[in-house]
């Protein structure tokens, strides 16, 4: 059996056009052996969630530098719930003050990777999180 590749959707919700980070992370995850579905800019939460479901993604990575993180994380997580897809891991990064991180995690985000996080940390975390998720599925 071929190995089960990790599939990640990398998305930029809303109107923010700064995609350097999203692209660097996408490349790094590709170099770590993952299949990255890169959706590009100006995605609505609905588009992101439908994409993740169609692509049978293990995780969704959200990049937000515009300060609208609380709004978008909450929308995406609730849409996943509505679609019975809460097993899809949600993580993200961008310009997110430390004080906002606890509420995002409480909402259901798996991790927030702030500025300066090495991409290797992100990749390793994802591998671990996906392995745990898959364990739960087989049980």
């Amino acid at each position, binding site marked *: 059996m071929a190995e089960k590749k990790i599939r990640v959707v990398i998305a930029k919700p809303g109107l923010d056009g700064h995609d350097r980070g999203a692209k*660097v992370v996408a490349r790094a995850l590709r170099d770590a052996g993952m299949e990255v579905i890169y959706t590009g800019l100006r995605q*609505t939460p609905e588009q992101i969630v439908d994409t993740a479901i169609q692509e049978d993604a293990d995780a969704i990575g959200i990049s937000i530098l515009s*300060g609208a993180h609380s709004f978008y994380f909450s929308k995406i997580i609730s849409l996943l719930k509505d679609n019975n897809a809460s097993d899809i891991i949600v993580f993200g990064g961008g310009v997110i003050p430390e*004080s906002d991180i606890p509420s995002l995690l409480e909402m259901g985000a798996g991790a927030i990777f702030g500025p300066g996080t090495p991409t290797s940390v992100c990749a390793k975390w994802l591998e671990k999180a996906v392995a745990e998720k898959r364990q739960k599925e087989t049980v």
Partner: protein
Amino acid sequence: MTDDKKNIPEIMEQRKKYEAKVEKVLEKRPERRKEFHTGGNLHLKRVYDPSDLKDFNYVQDLNYPGEYPFTRGVQPTLYRGRLWTMRQYAGFGNAEESNERYRYLLSQGTTGLSVAFDLPTQIGYDSDHPMAQGECGKVGVAIDSLADMEVLFNEIPLDKVSTSMTINAPASVLLAMYICVGEKQGVPANQLAGTIQNDILKEYIARGTYIFPPKPSMRLITDIFEFCSKNVPKWNTISISGYHIREAGSTAAQEIAFTLADGIAYVEAAKKKGLDPNVFGKRLSFFFNAHNDFLEEVAKYRAARRMWAQIMKERFGVTDQKAQTLRFHTQTGGSTLTAQQPENNIVRVTLQALAAVLGGTQSLHTNSMDEALALPSEKSVGIALKTQQIIAYESGVANTIDPLAGSYVIESLTNEIQQKAEEYINQIDDMGGMLVAIEKGYVQKHIQDAAYAYQRAIETNDAIVVGVNKFQIEENNKDMKLLKVDETVGERQIKNLKKMKENRDNIKVHDTLEAIRKAARDESQNMMPLIIDAVRNYATEGEICGILREEFGEYTENIIL
């Protein structure tokens, strides 16, 4: 230096002695690295000497400030006559809150305003558009109509203050609003001074707030050139930007190359429309990044000035000196700021600002220390401004012009950056110009490769970022006092929009919008007067851009990863 030419043999002898000594030292202690590079990957020698500038010719390569090719500066007395404009980019929430911040900055000594708009405004959406949800007022001020603009400039005299507006795709609309505010204040358009960024090419390349496809976008841009040269002559109609290209990850040479290549595309488009480069050339301005590598940055600005002068003269036959000069605004590099140990950012910004000043910038924005995390608080923006003031009044560097000229390393780097940048521009020329290069993804690919290489360098500790991959400390910044944008901005804007629409002459608005639609289909018509008319009657930005979206279509990004 000309004396050095005669002494070259003697110098070379001394160098041999020096290099022999170096060998001995290296045996005992190797250098910190095998090879040294600038931030932009240019090779940096151990030491530079006259032999690096064998063919140096002062008049040809540098000349005096205000003289072609303007390497040493755009104007004869530069900062001795007038310091650079201290222009802090600001805006958030709604017009009232931003107006307060502008009046604070003016009271603290800022000498020009710089408006940051929120993303819906930048992308031509009103605050009540579904795509605007969650975004109103977050990265800049929310402006839906002239009503908001009037509040934004309340008690700010437009005949005394110059304003730069960072607006691109809908620049025509915001400029129209500014002109109308001036009207209401009794300031005629020909007295207004300021800049609109209006640089759509870099949006496609690096910034992402485009609306329409390239062709109609260039039409709008050149309409503005034409309109302003007759009606708003003191206005800088474009700020051709390299800042964002650098922020997206490019090297210093690429920053210059791609910016000047964009400039070439704009000049060509304007020429095609029948405009005279000797005239509109005077109102082109540029916008660069001030990044970490101090020596390279200073050299970069000088190379840019010399290159643009040569391009305008040789490629476009421009004879008017004012139209040959590259005037620019600089912003310190946002992407260099760290979330870790934020106070360190004050030091970073200081060095970056110093490089920009030594490079001869016309205006400068210094970032605040907390900007890796949020928009600047009042306290930190104050420090950012003071940084400029201390450089201006205490460091002495502004008291003589282009002080680093003649330095062996600075002149060598200036030459090298020019050479590298010209290679890129030649390739772009061969491809058919910047519009083709962008479509093919040539520009984007280079930038992304550079960005990825830099990230690899940091993760392998080849590049050091203090506090991030070296000299880290245990810290807890959870309680940092950061600016929080009021979440109710969107709600309030939507309420105000509704009220405003009820109180305006909706029939007139409809007519003005249809006139815009008609003009959009006729390339020979200049759209500015019609946009001003619509704006004056309180048509919203979203309504105007909605018509243009229907007529011009929307751009979808080109992905090369």
